[in-house]
């Protein structure tokens, strides 16, 4: 079993609804604040971006890095989280 964090599991366990962007795996307080400043205040907005980039790992991670300065681990976590959510609910 791949090592996923509790945040990941919590996020993937149910529809994201109106969850804040900080509930995404890899996105903590600081990164969440940066994202909110850029306009990505909800998890679904980030998810929208994820879809816009056609669920491409590299692109999304690049975008995440550019937007909020996430490091590679955080990028990976966020991407994995959204991807798993897609697999479960989309």
């Amino acid at each position: 079993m791949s090592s996923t964090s509790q945040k990941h599991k919590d996020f993937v366990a149910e529809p994201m609804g109106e969850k804040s962007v900080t509930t995404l795996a890899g996105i903590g307080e600081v990164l969440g604040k940066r994202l909110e400043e850029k306009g990505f205040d909800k998890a679904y907005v980030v998810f929208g971006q994820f879809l816009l980039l056609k669920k491409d790992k590299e692109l999304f991670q690049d975008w995440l890095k550019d937007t909020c300065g996430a490091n590679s681990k955080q990028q990976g976590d966020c991407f994995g989280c959204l991807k798993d959510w897609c697999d479960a609910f989309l």
Partner: protein
Amino acid sequence: MASMQLTDEELFSELKRLGFTPGPVTENTRPVYLKKLKKLREEQQQRGSRSGKPRSGAVVNSIIGGGNTTGSRPASHDVTQPSSNRRPGRKSSVLGFSSDESDAEIPLKRKGLNHSGRVDRSPAFQQPKPRPITPTVVNKNHHGAGSPLNSNDSSRSPDGHRGVSLVWGARARSSPEAEGRDYDESGDEDDNEQATEKNSRSLNGCGASHSTPSKLAGDYSDSDEEEANLGAEDRRRDRLGGHRSHTKAAFLSQGVGRGPQTGGAAREASPSGSVNMVGRRREEGEEDEEADQNNHVDSGDGYSRSGDISRFSIGLRPRFSSYSSLSQPYRSNHSNHSTSNHTYSQAALKQKLSPPEDELLQQFKREEVTSHGSFSAHYLSMFLLIAACLFFLLLGLMYLRMRGSGATEADADKVKKDVILQLLLSLHDHLAHIAGMCVCVDTFFMTMLLFFFSLSQAQNQQFEGLVLESLEWIIRSDQDVGIRLIGQVPDDPVTDINEISRLESTHPNMPFVCRFRRAFLTGISRVFVFLVAVGLVWSVVFYIKYRWRREEEETRQMYDMVERIIGKELDSLSGDKTFSTCLFFSATLRSDLTEPSLSCDKSTSMPSKVWQGKAFPLDRRNSPPNSLTPCLKIRNMFDPIMEVGENWDLAIQEAILEKCCDNDGIVHIAVDKNSKEGCVYVKCLSAEHSGKAFKALHGSWFDGKLVTVKYLRLDRYHQRFPQAQSCTTPMKASGPHLRAVGSTDGTASRASTSSSSSSSGFS
């Protein structure tokens, strides 16, 4: 790349052109796509510079480029696709010579695919002549003179320099006469061929290459005729040049070490190509030598020599210059870099032809190289065969010699010796007969008569005087003639003939019956001995097996006793070896009693009804992502047959409540006492509560059993337990935790809250 001013549409189309299908370009995705575009363009450039293997790269790229965009690395692969698309004919075109072809490719790529037209044409040229003949097309372009051929020859040998000059001298000598600027190709070709062959023979090593050049020349000439693009004169010239270059190519291919000799060869991607180019370049260089001394140094851009085929008088040019000059016209075909006077101004036409020719020449040379390799292999096999034959021949001769030497011993007194031998033979036979009878009949007195018997017999024949002599001879010779001489004292070696009192045969010639009988007896005895041995072995094996079975029996009995002991702690058995072992086993098993591996009968001291951790972490695969109903059915909580006591169902209820102590939404629990599966039905306040309970219970170990949970439909639940419809108050665990065994209890009670942590620990 100035991509800053790209609009969204431009960016989009640019990305698409590079083979990557992007999503919508919005203000958020724009920077990402810009970066992507940069990366793709860089990769493209990189790929373009590495034009050594365009076709392989193209193929690979196309394969990978067809990949998805959503893959982890979509863009990098996609980039290659357009490059591959742009070079459709590349693959075929780079078959042959590659030297000029690849060189042509590099500038092509550098100029950003502007020469694709020319590139495409080269494939078109090559396709009609896929044979190795195509080198002639290449050669045509540089119209090498005889000297170029010389350069070829020289290039062929490893120490080609000297050879080259020699060859060149020869060629120059031969070529001038044939050279006549009139391009009498046939004559020239013949002369060249002969000269080539002679020269090639003079050179070391590549003896086998003679045939190939001539063949190639012939092929080239054929292909020359096929070449439609050249005019008649061009064709002739090409043929001549092609012939030369062709031979040159042949030699070059054989002398692979030529590559570094020409600077121009450095441009070649492949060594054979470089070899080709070297040869060609030299040819051209030679031709152009008069006009331009730098040709040989020109590395790849010296296409200027294309016209110097008329320079047949260059025979004495130094090899390098000749090489370079040879290659020059070839090159110049490509790039019109003509600094020297071109007698042939095929110019653009030749340029287009040279790439295909180069490729063909390249291919041809490669084939020659391979043929050369196979040639040596052929030689090797022949050599081995001959060696084996010689070896066997030698062996036979030696054998004969030995035989002869062995047979030629007795040459003195041959006649006498023969007589003696005959006498001895008869004596031997007689003695053998007697001995055989003796052996069979077991009478000894016969031996006494032997001597007299044989003597009388011998005297009857003509060997009278020789009897004694023969006996003496027996004594003298060390050979075993089958007759043993026995003196008065047995077992004493007889040295003097007078001591002989008896003769005995060492090879008794027994009658058939006796022999048969003896053989039979021997056989029987031997078989008997063998059977005895087999019987012995079998008995040993049997005994071992018996012992092993006995031991197994003993251990089984021991295990039975151990099992019984586990059940009854205080049993004491009679003094027995197995008893001690049983005690030992029981002691070791005692420590495992807390493990959920044994499902034992109830014993008050034995802990039971405890939660013993989680078997697997709950994830998407083994549990529904969200709780479906508020009703749960829990399986494998107990075994109704094994349960003893009055209120075990209550205990189970308590256990469940404790497990879900943080979940205060359980309103009804029903333990189905009669279910073989050990089912417990739970109803919760809501789906969320049941989900939590599910997470807490599913996959946990309870009392040594793995508990599974599934959701039930609410209406079914109410059908079954109508009293549950009215339950709305959450149930709580009553009293302190009863089923505690040391620390495990704490773990069990906290299991619900820590299930996630434990599950994460598991993962």
